[in-house]
């Protein structure tokens, strides 16, 4: 139950912080797989972008990793554990090392910014302390630090989350994920609800988080330009399967046609 700065190496001698997905399958309705036996290894560093049209299973894939969605079959090795098989307290202990950033930010609207950040500590702090807002001083100090680090500033601490703009909310969402001292950060379409300029800023912030915290970041994104600009690796998905996997410069128009199905997807 102690928090290591890095998880122990998983099986097969992978790097610390690596994610190993084997034969991952998800069927919301029996016989209709959304994910068709996906196998992937994601190294414990850098920014990985998963691109593909809506409804292709990108979101399901990353939600299987922190088990907001339960996979139908397959293994997800991370930090020496098969996440797919965890339950109860073990699952919660694994989740607290996996930060998640959401498309619609998913901040608790009626809480202040600082309270939203401290939500990131709930895996470490007993519930009664959270009830009484008696978070450890170190956590509160860290939250204030992160407010600056994500470009909001300390004045935002007591503002209620529902008073913020989309870009500001996403910065809070990212800070909440970093508060978890994550060994892995998942981002599900983090820029899809934002304007183009803010989208770039948010991607820059996620890249900064990845390098500053030395933590791998996996981003679902349908904007190919942003993916190519910020990711070191791109995974293209189509109809529940991986159809491209490589560095951004290896991604060609015919790959995009395969991912998005015809010229329409390139627009």
């Amino acid at each position, binding site marked *: 139950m102690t928090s290591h700065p890095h998880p122990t190496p998983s099986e097969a001698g992978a790097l610390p912080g690596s994610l190993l997905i084997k034969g991952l399958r998800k069927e919301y309705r029996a016989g209709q797989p959304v994910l068709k036996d996906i196998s992937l290894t994601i190294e414990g560093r850098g920014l990985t972008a998963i691109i593909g049209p809506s409804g292709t299973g990108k979101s399901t894939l990353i939600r299987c990793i922190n088990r907001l969605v339960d996979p139908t079959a397959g293994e997800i090795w991370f930090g020496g554990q098969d996440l797919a098989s965890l339950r109860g307290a073990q699952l919660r202990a*694994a989740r607290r090392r996996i930060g998640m950033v959401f498309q619609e930010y*998913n901040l608790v609207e009626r809480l202040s910014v600082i309270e939203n950040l401290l*939500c990131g500590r709930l895996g470490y702090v007993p519930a009664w302390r959270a009830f009484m807002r008696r978070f450890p001083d170190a956590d509160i100090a860290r939250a204030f630090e992160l407010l600056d680090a994500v470009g909001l500033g300390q004045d935002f601490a007591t503002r209620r989350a529902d008073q913020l703009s989309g870009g500001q909310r996403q910065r809070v969402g990212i800070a909440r994920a970093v508060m978890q001292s994550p060994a892995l950060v998942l981002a599900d379409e983090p820029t899809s609800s934002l304007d183009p300029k803010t989208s770039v800023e948010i991607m820059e912030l996620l890249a900064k988080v990845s390098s500053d915290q030395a933590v791998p970041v996996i981003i679902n994104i349908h904007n190919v330009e942003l993916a190519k600009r910020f990711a070191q690796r791109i995974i293209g998905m189509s109809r529940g399967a991986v159809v491209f996997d490589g560095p951004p410069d290896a991604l060609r128009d015919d790959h995009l046609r395969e991912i998005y199905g015809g010229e329409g997807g390139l627009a």
Partner: protein
Amino acid sequence: MSVVAASAAPLRTRAFPAQWSARLAWVGLCLYTIYAASLLDVTLARFVQGIENGARFFDRMFPPNLAADKLALLSTGMLESIQIAILSTFFGVLLSLPLGLMAARNLTPGWLSWSARGLIAVLRSFHSVIVAILFVKAVGFGALAGILALIVSTMGFISKLFADAVEEMSMKQVEAVRATGASFFGVLAMGVFPQVMARFIGFATYQLDSNLRNSTMVGLVGGGGIGATLFTAYQRFDYDFVLTILLAIIAIIMAMELVAGRLRRIFQ
């Protein structure tokens, strides 16, 4: 093809298709109301006679009785009613919190939420006066019976409203808190309560108001408070004192409404 076929029907019918089941239900309701009224023998003659009786009764109520001994009776009864209202609201609301959470289908497994909902349905199925009769038999005359009866009705009402409020909250916010590795109670503290607490306090202050009114009623069946005083005054044909009591109840309800509004602002 289908476009051609559809355009054969008049434009209006296509935009607003007839809802025959709703029309049938309305017609049925009207017919039953007429039938029920005919059974109850509601006639104009009886209505006029009733007005005459009412006028005589009203006449005997004036002026309100303000004798010192009556006022002492009034204040004792009133204070007891207020105590009944406050205690039953406090304990009823406190017990509704866990019951309402258990009944919320988006937080608890099916077997638990359905049994909690079953319990709430039982608590709700009897009017507080009927529950008060049961408690008067069980614990004897007096304020305790009234308090227990109103705790039951408070729990029935508040836990259902609270469960519904919890079911309507945004699950996205809860999901995000859950994704941090928070325990169930951690999710409650930071994901659920912030979303529903304001409404819960609204329900509780409304219930305080409503329990004060109900506390005057459980007194009629032996549950203590001003209701008992009122009932005695009726039976002794002290209609002028009845008026004093009724005016006092109106005043206290109005005062309570102000207090409840103030409380709501403090807690939110």
